[in-house]
């Protein structure tokens, strides 16, 4: 008796890339706005970035239906936290909440590749990178999604800092200024758009700093 095979899959990949870079007192989170399925483009104007808390923004690529479900769940949990503690959730706390939320669906995962960016309790930029089932790590920069294999080596070249595991501890914050980091993000997406079919259309950039949250857009190639 040959093993039964499923004739459909609950998952789909809507493509797209996300990037986040942490600075001394800012954090840049960016994602393209193309949503695809197979070789078709569903829309050129879909935001993959969502604000989870005042100091915490998440960008997710992968299966957008799972991403939407995840965003709703985290937003609800944040609301409960605010009711119980009378304050916004900090970025490191939200990072662990996201990790646990992903792991609770360990045997039917959210097909969502996330990058969390924000300011930590001291006001320094922080970026957390995740896999689909919740393993996470605080890093200085990260990229996820279909273009990540193109983007990550370039970010390593420009931003790689001493590993936090080294002893004696060496400081790992990006030396870039906020405007330099935004320019780097624009460069990186322009390159990724050239070689990844799922990345393009428009780039959404969110910057978090002491003044609050700013958003800007940049056009990318639409082919």
């Amino acid at each position: 008796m040959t093993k039964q095979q499923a004739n459909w899959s609950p998952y789909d990949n809507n493509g797209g890339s996300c990037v986040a870079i942490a600075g001394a007192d800012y954090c840049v989170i960016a994602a393209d706005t193309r949503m695809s399925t197979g070789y078709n483009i569903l829309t050129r104007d879909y935001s993959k970035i969502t604000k989870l808390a005042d100091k915490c923004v998440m960008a997710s690529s992968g299966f957008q239906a799972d991403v939407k479900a995840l965003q709703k769940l985290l937003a609800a949990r944040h609301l409960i936290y605010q009711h119980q503690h009378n304050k916004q959730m900090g970025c490191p706390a939200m990072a662990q909440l996201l990790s646990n939320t992903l792991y609770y669906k360990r045997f039917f995962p959210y097909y969502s590749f996330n990058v969390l960016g924000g300011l930590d309790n001291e006001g320094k930029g922080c970026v957390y990178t995740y896999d689909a089932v919740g393993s996470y790590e605080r890093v200085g920069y990260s990229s996820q999604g279909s273009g990540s294999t193109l983007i990550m080596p370039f970010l390593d070249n420009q931003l790689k800092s001493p590993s936090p595991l080294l002893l004696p501890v060496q400081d790992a914050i990006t030396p870039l200024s906020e405007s330099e980091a935004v320019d780097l993000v624009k460069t990186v997406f322009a390159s990724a758009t050239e070689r990844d079919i799922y990345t393009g259309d428009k780039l959404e950039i969110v910057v978090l700093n002491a003044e609050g949250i700013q958003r800007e857009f940049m056009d990318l190639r639409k082919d």
Partner: protein
Amino acid sequence: MKLDTSGLESVAPFLGVSSELVGGLSGAPYFELPNTANFDRFQKDAIQMVKPAKGTTTLAFIFKEGVMVAADSRASMGGYISSQSVKKIIEINPYMLGTMAGGAADCQFWHRNLGIKCRLHELANKRRISVTGASKLLANILYSYRGMGLSVGTMIAGWDETGPGLYYVDSEGGRLKGNRFSVGSGSPYAYGVLDSGYHYDMSVEEAAELARRAIYHATFRDGASGGVASVYHVGSEGWKKLSGDDVGELYYMYNPITPSTVEQEMTDVAGP
């Protein structure tokens, strides 16, 4: 399994295929196929069944001064290196460490869960949990998820009332007490260095250097291991991180570049 090629026979004369092809067929051609569900995948599936272990190198050993624990820091997704700075030595509490091999999320989540259970034990019993107890808690949880696809190959190292303790626990439900373990795809290389250099009566510095070298050699030969070699020591006062060295730099430390003789001659000539 006989392949049905009757379709070939009817089509060939209709399309006016070259006569030597039709003439060469003396009867219905066939070739044996293995009786498998998926002809294209069965060989790969067979290899997957004896698949090499989790992509990492971790090791731990007991010696006179306590327990030495070391690991690399590379995480790979297939052939892509997803991170070079993963913390594979997890601090469960100030006197117990766990190592991570296998699924990163599985190890992170269950070690955090174990830390919570250990703290609850302390609060309920007014004393620290033993290494035996902690490893049993983890092993029982992993056994209950046996067969569901968790991938965890961990070592629990600590110092309790009975002295230094070391257990190996994995997602198949296995739990082994021992003095010396290495887990991961780089473990054969690490065992080679570790077993040949091990003495019970080493000092802390000698043991740390042995652990560091074992990880270094594993990262040198195993593609799935690399990054930073971290070394921790667990003594009677708890654990302490002794070193974290980039393995690329360790290479040049262990294999220093000596200037070649040609260069030396040239500097001699340049002198007054």
